[in-house]
Each structure stands twice: as structure tokens, then as C-alpha cells.
């Protein structure tokens, strides 16, 4: 177990470096810069600005400096949000994104596992057919369609829920979270339902389950004690890609529902060529995806002892 963690952490380092190098190179060698405004700056002003942000150093040196700072948790000042450091911006927006993503994956797991279980009890029955069709439809629903549609129906027409924003604090007003979380969770819930159904149906068809049934165990006990753990394996191995999907979806959801999260800063940062901000967000996303994949692999080993090598 410890060897696995160590090996994965070691392979994560070159991946993260690659991400950093690629995005750094991409942004620096591209035309256009953060100080290109409506009016061209005077050459002296421009030079002074570039010197102040270290943009006049040789590329290799800039990258080395960047790495060194990053390791100490200092991502530098934002080039667009003056007077804010990138670390500050991230510290403000990361909790919003994590709350959104965490609630969404929780909801997706609850809905998906419940639907998968009901469907797997009678493979081929009407509940199975209906639920799986619904799961397919829900998986294919893009969050940028469901988000605005939900806002239209429950926000504008029925007036039940606020259409955007966060209220006063992070969790002070739960009604602000309902629509964003549902819109983000639905596609993931659909995918989990399908995986859970397939895993559970396969597990329930095995011989030790028949033995348990013959011994007179009830369906609930059989699922809880014997079938659920192996059935969760495909669900857990999907969690890594699911996390990536949630991060991408969150960008749209945060834009649609005006949530001050990381995704919105990323889009704004990319549009404004706010180099330090983009680099920090990309690094964070890559690290999150790697972390999620690692957690998924660890859970995998716990659920299926055969995979522990």
C-alpha cells in the first residue's frame, strides 16, 4: 500500500512538471500580452512594468524562478486583479469550488448507487429498462443546457430558488447551492448508475450469492454484506475521470450561476492572459486530478483484495 502511494507520488512529479512547462511555454511564446490595452503604453512604461513582474528575464530563468516560488506556495501577483496575489485569489475561490464539487459528487453517488441497485435487482425488468434509459439521457445532458434550463424553470418561472450568487457566506444560504449542485451532479449520477448496475448485476449472479440466498439471507443483507463491495469497484475506478469531468463542468456552472469559484477565475484569467493565475489554476487542477486518481486506486485495493499486488 505504502509502495503504491510512493510510486504514484513519484510519477506525479514529472506529470506536474510537464503540465507546468507546457502551459508556461504556450503562454509565453504566444502573441499578445497582459499589458496590451486599448492604447499602446509608452516604451519606458512597458519596460518598467515588465521589469517589475520579471518578464524581461531570459525564459529559462523565468521558469526556474517560477518553480522556486511555486514550491514555497507563492504564485506571484495577479497581473489583472491588481493588488491581489494569486494565492489570495485561490484561497478565496477554492472553498467555493470544492464545496460545489464535493456536494455534487455526494449527490451523484447517492442517486447513482440507489438507481443502480434498484435496476440490478431485476435485470431486464421494467425498472431496469426505464432507469437505464434515464441514466443514458442524463449522462448526455450537458451542464450548460441543464443549468440555464433549471434557472429558467425554478428561478424565473416558479421563483422558488435564487438564479445566482452565493448569499452572504459560503454555506449561509443552502438554497443558493441547490440548482448548481443538481446541474453538475446529474451526468455523473447517470454514469455511476450504469456502472453500479453492471457491477451489482454481475456480483449478484455469482455462486456465493446463490449460496447465501439458499441459506435464507434476505436481499438487503445479501447486497450489504456480499454484493456491494465488489460491485463498487467499477464505480470507484470511474471516480478519477469523474473528478476531471466535475472540474470542467464546474467552470460552466460557476459562470451560469455566478458563483465566485476557481473556474470563473480560470476563464477570466485565460481571456486576460493573467499568466500567474492561469499557471496556478492549471497546476491545482492537475494536482487535484492526480490526487483523485490516487484515492480511487487506494479504494480499489481496499474493495478488491485481488488487485493488491
Amino acid at each position, binding site marked *: 500500500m505504502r509502495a503504491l502511494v510512493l510510486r504514484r507520488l513519484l510519477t506525479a512529479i514529472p506529470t506536474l512538471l510537464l503540465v507546468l512547462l507546457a502551459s508556461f511555454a504556450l503562454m509565453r511564446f504566444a502573441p*499578445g500580452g497582459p499589458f496590451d490595452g486599448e492604447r499602446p503604453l509608452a516604451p519606458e512604461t512597458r519596460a518598467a512594468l515588465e521589469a517589475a513582474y520579471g518578464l524581461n528575464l531570459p525564459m529559462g530563468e523565468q521558469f526556474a524562478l517560477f518553480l522556486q516560488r511555486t514550491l514555497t506556495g507563492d504564485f506571484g501577483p495577479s497581473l489583472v486583479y491588481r493588488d491581489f496575489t494569486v494565492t489570495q485569489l485561490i484561497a478565496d475561490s477554492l472553498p467555493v469550488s470544492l464545496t460545489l464539487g464535493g456536494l455534487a459528487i455526494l449527490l451523484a453517488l447517492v442517486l447513482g448507487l440507489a438507481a443502480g441497485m434498484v435496476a440490478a435487482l431485476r435485470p431486464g425488468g421494467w425498472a431496469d429498462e426505464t432507469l437505464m434509459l434515464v441514466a443514458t439521457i442524463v449522462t448526455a445532458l450537458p451542464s*450548460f443546457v441543464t443549468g*440555464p434550463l433549471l*434557472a*429558467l424553470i425554478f428561478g424565473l418561472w416558479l421563483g422558488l430558488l435564487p438564479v445566482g450568487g452565493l448569499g452572504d457566506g459560503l454555506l449561509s444560504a443552502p438554497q443558493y447551492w441547490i440548482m448548481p449542485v443538481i446541474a453538475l451532479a446529474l451526468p455523473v449520477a447517470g454514469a455511476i448508475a450504469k456502472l453500479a448496475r453492471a457491477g451489482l448485476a454481475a456480483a449478484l449472479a455469482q455462486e456465493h450469492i446463490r449460496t447465501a440466498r439458499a441459506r435464507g439471507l434476505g436481499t438487503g443483507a445479501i447486497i450489504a454484506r456480499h454484493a456491494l463491495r465488489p460491485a463498487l469497484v467499477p464505480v470507484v475506478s470511474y471516480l478519477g475521470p469523474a473528478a*476531471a469531468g466535475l472540474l470542467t463542468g464546474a467552470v460552466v456552472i460557476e459562470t451560469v450561476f455566478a458563483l465566485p469559484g476557481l473556474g470563473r477565475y480560470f476563464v477570466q484569467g485565460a481571456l486576460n492572459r493573467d499568466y500567474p493565475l492561469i499557471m496556478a489554476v*492549471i497546476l491545482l*487542477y*492537475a494536482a487535484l486530478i492526480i490526487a483523485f*486518481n490516487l484515492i480511487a486506486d487506494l479504494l480499489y485495493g481496499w474493495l478488491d483484495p485481488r488487485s493488491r499486488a
Partner: protein
Amino acid sequence: MKRIALPAAIVALIALAALVLPMLLPWSHDAIDWDHVRAAPATAGHWLGTDELGRDRLARLAVATRITLAVALAAALVSMLVGVGWGMIAGWAGGRTDELMMRIVDALYALPFMFIVIVLMVVFGRSILLVFVGIGLVEWLTMARIVRGQVMTLRHRPFVLAAEASGAPVRVILARHILPNIAGVALAYLTLNLPGIIMIESFLSFLGLGVQEPLTSLGILVKEGADDMDVAPMGLQVPGGVMVTLLVCLTLVGERLRDRFA
């Protein structure tokens, strides 16, 4: 075939409408009807009404669907070529080459690709070509994995061994014996890739980074509709509906093809 026919027919119908409608309608997708700005549906020959600039919504919808489908198909083909090529080489070569090639795929899976595509878009300008390339580069990974697995099982089948023993060159074996046997799976994953690509393209367009005016795509129409939904909800519902129908039908066709071949 029965369960595939219905969703496939719906996709074909939408595609046909997207191709034919612009030729039948008296308005082009960017022509402005000054007398009927924000017209309600079915006024003055505008079946779906006009948008805030007086452009015919039906004509825009048809052109948007056309472009979305074209981008998806082109990007899916790119990703299929790369994925099938990569997977075949890795699966056939085996050993260290295979190990290295699959490690690269694993590493790429871990990248936040969507964000790199966004940065690409911002940095190198917003051309349709770049949308293709960017999406095609993201979507080949799963295809490569699946094809590699298939090739590895085919590798030791008697007919392949026989061809090898009779001295057929590798190129011929791959083209004549391997490729026909993975065509079905490749087709299934090509279809399954389409909805994913449509989502990425629309996602980029939604953020204002994809297809640019005067061209339009379903993602742009959904975005415009969402901005305007308090006064003209149809502007969101109709393109959103078309897009969801396409996505659901393509997913159903792809899943059912996959269940058949894999």
C-alpha cells in the same frame, strides 16, 4: 438492429434538416430582417421568430446544427485515426514499446486537458481548425486503449499466426487481418466520441472561445438563449432541445454498437 435504428434515424433526420433547411429558407443565418426584430414564432414567415438582431432563428438553428455536426465528425475522425494508429502499433509491438506508449496515454489521461485546450484557444486565436485539432487530440486516448486490447487478443489468433508464418509483411497483416476485425469496435467508439466532442465544442463556444461569428454553433445558440431567457425562453429551449436530442441519440447508438461489438 431494432434498438439502434430509431435513435440513428432521429440523428439522420436532424442532420438532413440541417443540410437542407438553409437552402429552402428565404433568409440566411446572418441576414437581418430590420422590420421584425425579436419577432414571435410564426410571424412574417419566421417559423421560430427572430433573435435580438432580427436574424431568423430557424436558419440560425439549421446552420448551427450543421457546423456542430461537422466539427464533431471531423474531430472524431482525427481522434479515430490517431487512436487506432497508436493502439495498433502498441498492441502489435508489445513489450517495451507497448509499455512506453501506454504510459504516455496514462500520463495524458491525468492532464486537465480541457484547460489546456482553453489556453490554446485563447493564445492562438479562435479558429475552427484549432477546435478540431484540440478536441481530436483530447479524445483519442480511450480509442487507443480499446484498440490496443483488441489487437493484443487478435495477435495470437491462428489466422494471424498463419499469415505471419507464410511471410506476409506486417503492413499487410495489419491492413488485411487486424484492421477489419477492429473496425466494428472502432466504429462504436467513434459514435460514442461524437457526443463527447459536441459537448466540448459547445462548452468552448459557450465560454466564447469556440466557433466565432458570423458562423454559429449549437453552443453559441444555447449561450445566447441563456443570456436572453427571461424575455425569450424559446431561444434557449429550442437549440437546447436539439442539442440534447442529438447527444442522447448518439449516445444510445454508440452504446448499443459497443455492446454488440465489444
